[in-house]
């Protein structure tokens, strides 16, 4: 972990939906988070824990109210004069089922929507679209002139994510954006995002109910429950406390669970493993000893 200023800082954030109506629902009751440049951070918690509400504060879709504070790239987001468009360009947010946002007839045009809004010259737009499409694994020449609504579900999902990447964000937030994709498509998408994180220094904030995906991608995890951040730490630290996670209705990756089970049966194994490969190594160790 570095000691530089965090790029996103959240202090004691509260939020109530449908405020001042008889239907108001309190979603956040005190969230604290810090995200540094170049990190991959996960946010886990059961449904209704407030994960989506928190991340929508990161690009100004929801503004913080007193006493909560959200600082993004040095801008206090409660200030109504903050240039949210500039922030949204730096902090890209991909929603659950992002294919619902597609509207252009051709794939290339749809991905070009963001860069066009920036008023960039044609060549630059084309370059960004090409780059974004390659990043998600859609061949530029092959897909740019295809009809948007003739794509398969997985391809639509990729096109929608490319639409956000075309803005060249420094932070990418994925809010359950991989749910509803077939396992192979999800694995492919995750490995591409992992690549962008490792080789392009993209800061990734990952919200997912899937602990396996989480373990494979992020370095640090925040656990949320009832609108509060209740645990935080490195991925290994968090997943080495299955009892505590169970209190919040959460589990650990299956391989980690297997290791905990082995340990409970008296085997000398490392319970902090997160991936199948690591688990395999540990199990060979016992078998060979």
């Amino acid at each position: 972990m570095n000691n530089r200023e965090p790029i996103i800082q959240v202090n004691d954030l509260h939020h109530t939906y449908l405020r001042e109506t008889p239907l108001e629902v309190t979603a956040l009751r005190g969230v604290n988070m810090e995200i540094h440049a170049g990190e991959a951070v996960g946010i886990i918690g059961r449904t209704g824990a407030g994960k989506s509400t928190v991340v929508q504060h990161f690009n100004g879709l929801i503004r913080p109210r007193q006493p909560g504070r959200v600082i993004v790239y040095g801008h206090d987001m409660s200030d109504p004069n903050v240039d949210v468009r500039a922030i949204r360009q730096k902090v890209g947010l991909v929603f659950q089922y992002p294919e619902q946002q597609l509207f252009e007839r051709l794939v290339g045009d749809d991905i070009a929507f963001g860069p066009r809004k920036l008023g960039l010259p044609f060549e630059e737009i084309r370059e960004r679209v090409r780059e974004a499409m390659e990043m998600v694994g859609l061949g530029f020449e092959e897909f740019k002139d295809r009809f948007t609504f003739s794509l398969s579900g997985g391809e639509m999902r990729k096109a929608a994510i490319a639409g956000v990447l075309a803005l060249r964000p420094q932070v990418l937030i994925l809010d359950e954006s991989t749910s509803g994709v077939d396992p192979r498509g999800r694995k492919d998408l995750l490995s591409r995002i992992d690549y962008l994180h490792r080789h392009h220094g993209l800061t990734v904030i990952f919200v997912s109910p899937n602990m396996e995906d989480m373990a494979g991608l992020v370095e640090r995890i925040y656990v949320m429950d009832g609108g509060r951040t209740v645990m935080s730490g490195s991925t290994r630290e968090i997943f080495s406390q299955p009892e505590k996670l169970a209190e919040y209705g959460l589990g650990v990756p299956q391989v980690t669970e297997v290791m905990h089970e082995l340990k409970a049966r008296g085997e000398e194994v490392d319970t902090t493993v997160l991936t199948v490969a690591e688990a395999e190594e540990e199990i060979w160790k016992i078998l060979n000893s």
Partner: protein
Amino acid sequence: MEDFEFLRNITIGQYLPGNSLAHRLDPRTKITVMLLMTLAITFNISYLSNIILLLVCLLFVLLSSISLKYILSGVKPALGFIIVLAILQLLFYGDAFVPYNTASRTIFRWGWIHITNGSVQLVIVSSLRFLELLFLTSLLTNTTTTSELAHGIEDMLSPFSKIGLPGHELSLVVTIALRFVPILAEQLEIIMKAQASRGADLGAKGKLQLIQTTRQVVVLVVPLFIDALRRAEDLILAMEARCYVGGRGRTRLSRLHLTGKDYGAMAVVLVFAVFMLAYRARFPF
């Protein structure tokens, strides 16, 4: 600062659970009361009668547990429309409307613009009527679930089935339409947020350029329509899968019963509405 939370401003159509008198009345009673009151409101154009009607509507609000502040917040989204309408009426309706009991007097005339005591009255009465109707529709939908409303409509239309009116189907159409309003509002909110996240300047102040505004609408309307059509298709499939065939021979889990309260409420409102209609030309101002 843009606010993406529409449902905060849409108060009509939102059921609020409760146990007040307005909640307990039979939906058919509430629909009848609403129809009678609407008749009385549409035919009364004097100041005094509209003040009386507004007070009665306020009384209805008091008889429910719905807060007046919540109902009034429903005016907000329509405010711009009301103001434009009021200005048009004030400036151009001077010759068209002559109030009862008084002669038409010109207050201001300049070219096409002709303001009379009649057009002033029209503006004020229109605003009062708008409030009265807002109270009534809000109350009906805030205190009645959509299924109750549908049953009520179906029952009230059933006598017309002899002449071939499909009462059940009509009530189903109404139910589905009402049910889809909050769903589509929520969906629109998600689409707006998603488009804003990739650079759309929704809600940004400044340039009022027609082409830009139109393109903004396309960005929202295309995804919203696709979503609405897909939901409709899903609904059809779900209904087919459960062998839905319409109302014939169908029984209900909960039957509607009119109680003494219902007959009382209908009688009181009927007398009041008949009085307001019969005396509508005799109010002194």
